[in-house]
């Protein structure tokens, strides 16, 4: 699989190192508070696992599933929650854990939904950030890596359900996803 990469952006050890640093920041910021990590299925699961294991403070974990839908003749591109949280978040410090943030539209939707449940605080932690694709402002408090606007795979990021298990993060060769 590694031969399908145009370039390795971050090695396994670089990724683990960076996640540890971010986990340390979170541990300091949320010390003594009631933290809950909310991961968005499925892409964020790899990141969540490593992040949670690297925290020095206790944290609860929950999952949120979202899917796009186009009822009737509605235009595509809107999302709804397909799997809601199991835990109530009122009064808790919620940290949304995402694999990648780009335009920010979907996260904006999630923030609006979760904010109505009156958590004590609401912030975002993302493994990857394509900041130059952002359309809306978001409270991204923690980011592991800012990456260029390229097709990346590995460490949970997939193409056609492949490459997810690669321990590193790399740019996929164009001919892989453009071949006809």
């Amino acid at each position: 699989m590694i031969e399908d990469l145009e370039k390795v952006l971050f090695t396994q050890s670089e990724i683990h190192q960076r996640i540890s640093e971010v986990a340390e920041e979170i541990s300091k910021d949320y010390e003594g508070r009631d933290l809950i990590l909310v991961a968005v299925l499925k892409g964020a699961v790899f990141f969540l696992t490593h992040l949670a294991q690297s925290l020095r403070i206790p944290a609860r974990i929950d999952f949120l599933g979202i899917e796009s839908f186009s009822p009737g003749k509605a235009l595509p591109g809107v999302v709804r929650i397909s799997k809601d949280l199991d835990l109530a978040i009122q009064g808790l410090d919620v940290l949304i854990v995402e694999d990648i943030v780009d335009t920010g539209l979907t996260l904006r939707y999630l923030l609006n939904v979760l904010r109505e449940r009156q958590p004590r605080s609401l912030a975002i932690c993302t493994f990857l950030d394509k900041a130059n694709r952002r359309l809306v402002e978001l409270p991204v408090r923690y980011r592991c890596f800012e990456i260029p606007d390229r097709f990346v795979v590995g460490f949970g990021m997939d193409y056609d359900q492949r490459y997810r298990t690669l321990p590193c993060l790399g740019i996929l060769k164009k001919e892989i996803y453009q071949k006809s």
Partner: protein
Amino acid sequence: MLCGFAGALPYGIHEIGGGRKLAIITISYQPGSQGESIGQELAGHLGYALITPDRVSEIIRERYQIDYSLRGEIDQTPREKESAKLFASLISAVLTDMAVLNHLIVLECGGQFIFRSFPNALHVRIIAPRETRAHNIMQEIGSPPEQALKTIDELDRRHERFLRTSFRQPVNMPERYDLSINTKGLHVDAAVELILSAVRLKKIDAYGMVSSETVERLKLHNQIRLQRALTNLSLKSTPSLSQFANASELVFARLLDFYGIRWEYEPRTFPLRYDEKGNIIEAFSPDFYLPDSDLYVELTTMKQSLVTKKNRKVRLLHEIYPEIKIRLLYQKDFEDLIFKYKGPKAVGESL
């Protein structure tokens, strides 16, 4: 990109476990060359679903409440460019949806263009001399010889126009077909046998494996194309929507509304170049302004020439107005947004 007409699949076809085997035979035929009978008999032999122009018209009518006939009265094919594009998108949508569910034999309908890059497709062209075809027409509808010849010529013209208008493709390109059969002196059974041999040799039923995710992407891409075509029609017929230049802009405006993001449409024009007298000779009006982000957004399509042109304008804007924030939003961004969260239940959805 997919669906269409333009050829290549957007995402590769992979032979992986858990996918689906799909085989497609497209049959394009000259009127009176017995192509329809060959298609019917072939479908019986192979057990594939037979898709005829009548069936496609029926589905388009049921699903989209649009009444376009694909058969006989092909002169109903819209002449106007936008309607013709919509027509082609509708046909493509219907056929692609069917193709991810069944092995197909597609009679006419531009199938040879829609599926031209599918590795699991066999494209067949059935022809016969004009006189032979006229003879077959005479037998079929009992018209006199001269009338049969006129009918043949008229049907040929309509067919050519249908493909040119809807798919912008000429029909007579031999390299488009894997197999061409002249049915003069050849019985339907013999023609079917030839096609069956080609199916075995090309192994389309053995190698036509498409992963479930690719199937989903095909359907999604189709949905977007179709939505754009339908929206273009509503833009033309609804004055309140006429502020938008195209369907992509309307889609984006509705997305912003859904996500509760305030927007303004083309609120400002930025002069980019002046002539020696100080007259503006080039300007740029980004499509949207998002006041909460203090950000301008320009939408782009898949057309590379337009993307290049817009990239250049954005670069110029950055140079002249460095304080202005602007983003180019590509069609792929829409698709990614939708596909990332596409639920597994969508796999296998039927018509």
